[in-house]
């Protein structure tokens, strides 16, 4: 079957540029919320088929690390799901950057901070894509789980979605760097819509 989201070079460049802009907005928001200077960079952006997601994660992430996996449903024409994966150590560092005292950092607080970041990144990235095709989207409340290794990653995504846009994320603070992976999972229909969004953006350049 033809890969519906097979992007040509221009479309990929366009997606990278749009996500850079979105991340710029997200960075500004995060900096303002926590009152600290932060930069958010995207060293890598990729699109893969959803059935290759688990093998991608196996290559990319350390299989024995513990990870938090936050997922958030997107509703509307760009229906899909955003997933943010972050390792345990980065998560604790993130909580510190959010000015939590050592005695305040517990499982619940860490999860809450990750949900907050997921929410900000989701709205910045998917919101940007939606605005290109003049459509409205809404987000469901994000959920979070902790997995003891990447083997426990929920495999239901393979059947549920057709394509995945992977945005490797580096959140850089003065003291420390925090790494995470944001994945935008799209269904077939929304993949077509996304391609249309990119083409619209290219036409308007």
């Amino acid at each position, binding site marked *: 079957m033809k890969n519906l989201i097979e992007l040509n070079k221009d479309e990929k460049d366009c997606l990278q540029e749009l996500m850079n802009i979105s991340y710029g907005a997200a960075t500004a928001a995060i900096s303002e919320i926590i009152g600290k200077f932060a930069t958010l960079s995207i060293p890598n952006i990729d699109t893969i088929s959803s059935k290759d997601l688990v093998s991608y994660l196996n290559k990319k992430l350390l299989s024995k690390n513990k990870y938090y996996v936050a997922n958030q449903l997107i509703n509307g024409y760009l229906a899909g799901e955003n997933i943010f994966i972050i390792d345990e150590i980065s998560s604790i560092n993130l909580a510190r950057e959010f000015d939590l005292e050592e005695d305040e950092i517990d499982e619940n607080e860490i999860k809450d901070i990750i*949900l907050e970041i997921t929410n900000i990144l989701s709205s910045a990235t998917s919101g940007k894509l939606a605005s290109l095709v003049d459509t409205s989207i809404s987000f469901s409340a994000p959920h979070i789980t902790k997995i003891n290794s990447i083997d426990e990653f929920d495999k239901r995504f393979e059947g549920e979605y057709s394509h995945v846009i992977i945005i490797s994320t580096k959140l850089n603070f003065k003291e420390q760097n925090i790494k995470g992976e944001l994945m935008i999972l799209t269904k077939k229909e929304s993949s077509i819509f996304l391609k249309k969004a990119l083409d619209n953006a290219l036409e308007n350049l």
Partner: protein
Amino acid sequence: MQIDNNIIFDTVNNGIIILDEDLNVLAWNKWLEIYTKIKEKDILTKNLFKYFPYINEKKLKRKAKTVLVTNNPSFLSLNTNRYLINIPVSNVTNTIFDSMQQDITILPYNIEKKYICIYIYDNTLMCEINQKLERANEELIDMSHRDPLTQIFNRRYFSEQSKKIKSFSQRNDNIPFSLVTLDIDKFKNINDTYGHLVGDEVIIRVAHIIEAEVRTSDIVARFGGEEFVMLLQDCDLDNAYKVAEKVRQDIEKTSIIVHIDTEVKFTVSIGVAQFNQEDNNNIELTLSRADEALYKAKNIGRNKTVVSN
């Protein structure tokens, strides 16, 4: 058409609060008046934290700032916060939660004036159903791990756990662990003489005696019929022999009273083996060696404990 938002505000089936950036109350809908018994006129202009000091001020202020900065909704999910405002549950059919379980959405209401809006949804029923399902699921999993007669673990659970324990041992400088197989002597005679109900009682008694002798970290399983296996963690051959002998002696001393004048006594034969490198990383080979030792115990007169070399 002129739409009166106040009708929606006061009839919608969830709580709505409008707050300024310092979280002073600007509006408080009828739903909240009913559930909290606090009238809007009493709470207007008051700070939310003064009324509800248990609210995490730092977190809620951060959320408020987030929605005002991003102009997007933010959520307090039930994963991490059971409720924003503590509302006792009055539903008599609820048996799990004392307080209403809430989903909270925080929205920008007026960016220029820095007003936010909080929606409170009652999610208690869904949480209750989920929790009951989770409990039922846990019970099912537990049942699938246990032998129905004795309630000790079954062979399947033993196989799963023994692999994990073997891996743990190998990751930790080969911490020793041992297997003990145990078989009730002449069990067919007990069944034939006293009937299956007495036979079952003997099996249950043996299971209880074994369980009483091991630590909670050890695993005791019924492999079927009158055969049991113990997996003793952090336990070499000498210590495993001591535990096995204690079990054998305790069983030798016990009896079951069938009628006022009939006492059924019974014994067990035991084989002991320690997992070692010669087992070629296969715990089944350790089990086979323990079984061979058990047959030796049977062959030299029963009611004995024999260790595998």
